């Protein structure tokens, strides 16, 4: 599903050049549940952004679902993101003036699905996540765990090939965190590749494969 070969990424700020990802090699099969760990500055966020086509890289190759992702224009990148990737963020990133259902339906808006159909599918996913009765509520009326579940529903609604989660449990207590992780485990069972970036070991341990990143290189992969 994901093939990364000799990937390099540097950030240039003023006179200093920061080599964030160094000759990275990474293969992730379809349907894997992987966690990426590393301290801050290890390059894990950069890697996630590149995986999510939110950021570009300098040299090397990144194949996503057998498509070479390189030097795409923004429109093409947006289209690939929309079709292949679902995002889950630490701070949920729900749109505050849209209710739960509308938030979940948003990716479908960009797939030009009509409103009725969008809302129907959104409700379907909310139901799966046990949030049907909250569908009409605005994000600030929901608890953190509920918000994150809405965000997960939103990531799933477009039926992506992979779900990228950036510290999905960072803002949640441990009980809720475990619930969220078990959700990801269930998603994985449906054949979707799930990649979680985290710095919490107990979260990472619940995934099948842990990739340790340090100073822009993989130091451990188990």
């Amino acid at each position: 599903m994901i093939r990364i070969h000799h990937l390099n990424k540097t950030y240039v700020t003023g006179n200093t050049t920061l080599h964030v990802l160094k000759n990275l090699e990474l293969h992730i099969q379809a349907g894997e549940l992987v966690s990426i760990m590393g301290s801050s500055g290890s390059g894990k966020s950069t890697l996630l952004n590149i995986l999510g086509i939110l950021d570009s890289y300098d040299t090397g190759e990144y194949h996503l679902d057998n498509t070479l992702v390189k030097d795409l224009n923004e429109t093409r990148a947006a289209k690939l993101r929309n079709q292949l990737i679902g995002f889950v963020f630490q701070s949920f990133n729900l749109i505050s003036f849209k209710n739960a259902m509308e938030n979940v339906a948003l990716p479908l808006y960009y797939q030009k699905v009509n409103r009725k159909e969008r809302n129907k599918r959104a409700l379907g996913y909310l139901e799966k996540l046990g949030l049907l009765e909250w569908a009409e509520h605005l994000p600030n009326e929901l608890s953190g765990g509920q918000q994150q579940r809405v965000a997960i529903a939103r990531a799933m609604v477009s039926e992506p090939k992979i779900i990228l989660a950036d510290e999905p449990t960072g803002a949640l207590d441990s009980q809720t965190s475990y619930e969220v992780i078990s959700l990801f485990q269930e998603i994985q069972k449906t054949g979707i590749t799930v990649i979680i970036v985290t710095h919490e070991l107990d979260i990472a341990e619940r995934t099948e494969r842990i990739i340790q990143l340090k100073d822009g290189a993989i130091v451990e992969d188990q």
Partner: protein
Amino acid sequence: MIFSLDKFQEILDTVKKNKLRTFLTCFSVAWGIFILIILLGAGTGLENGVREEFNRDAINSVWIRRGQTSKPYKGLQPGRKIQFTNEDYEELKRSIEGIEYMSSRFYVWGNNNITYKEEYDTFNIISSHPDHQYLENTQLMQGRFINALDVEQYRKVAAIGNQVEAALFKGKPAIGEYIGINGISFKVIGTFTDERDEWQQRLIYLPLSTAQRIFNGRNRVHVISFTTGDVSPEKGAAMEKQAQQILATRHHFDVTDERAVHIGNRWEEYLKYMRLFGGIRIFIWVIGIGTIVAGIVGVSNIMLIAVKERTREIGIRKALGASPWSIIDLILTESILITVLSGYVGLLLGIGVLEVVSNYMPPSTYFRNPEVDWKVALGAFLLLVFAGCLAGFIPARKAAQVKPVQALHDE
């Protein structure tokens, strides 16, 4: 720019979220267009009023009145009175090319006792050539005006104003009856009116030749006037100058002596007013467009702030698959929608106010029928659409440049 119900719904959602912001934006645009329409309407009202005032008499007419010399000329002292004669009239008529209508005027001064059977009253009397009818915009009601034969044959005929008719005839038919003017009988050949000039309605017109003979005028005339037809301002001015030159030669006065004869050209005056209105119109447009521009800048400014506020939302949308174009589309459509809708409201309000004023305010000398040309209204509307695009463009471009990575990390 594809307009879909879905996009409209998206925009409505954001608009609903920011009611005050949207209201203020709408207000500034509506106010701008409202003021423009009111200003333009008021300008037109003023112009209509003055134009109407000028319509009283032929606009392109030149009136020449007697004066007194104020400059010495070839040994002649200043202070001589100039007298016009029939010969002056003939000479001017012969020499000046392009004259349309021409007439002399001989006033029969004093309180003239006019009688009809037992009725009597005093009225003013003017004698003239037939063309006078067109120089004064005299509107015939019945019969005819003085004609060439009347003048040629010294006929004792009279055309009377409607107030004269009312005073003497009290509703009975006047045409063909004889009235006494200072004891001499004249046949009434026509009645006329002049809606905008009450003085005219109390006048009696006689043939010039008849009046000169009966009322001891010999060959003297008081006023000579002519119209210049459809000529350019330059040609009109040239004709006026030629008349001055001919009279100066015939009466031996300095051609630069402006007090020897008084030449009044309504049509030059009219042009002066029209030039003034041209200036006023430009002034109004400048102010109006300035007001609209202020509105546009307001919209732009508010949209810029909105985009900044919505950076995160835009980042989320981009992460979820929104292309830069779809973001531009969203912001641009929102600002166009806001400007166009509120501009339309301002337009309607402005036109409404003008309608009310024009229907309920009595027309006065210098103000009547304030109105806005539909072409101008359409132009203003198109200007708004254009302005809406402009107001949305910079914020939209800024929004499209939002990087999702940065927007989302902006905790």
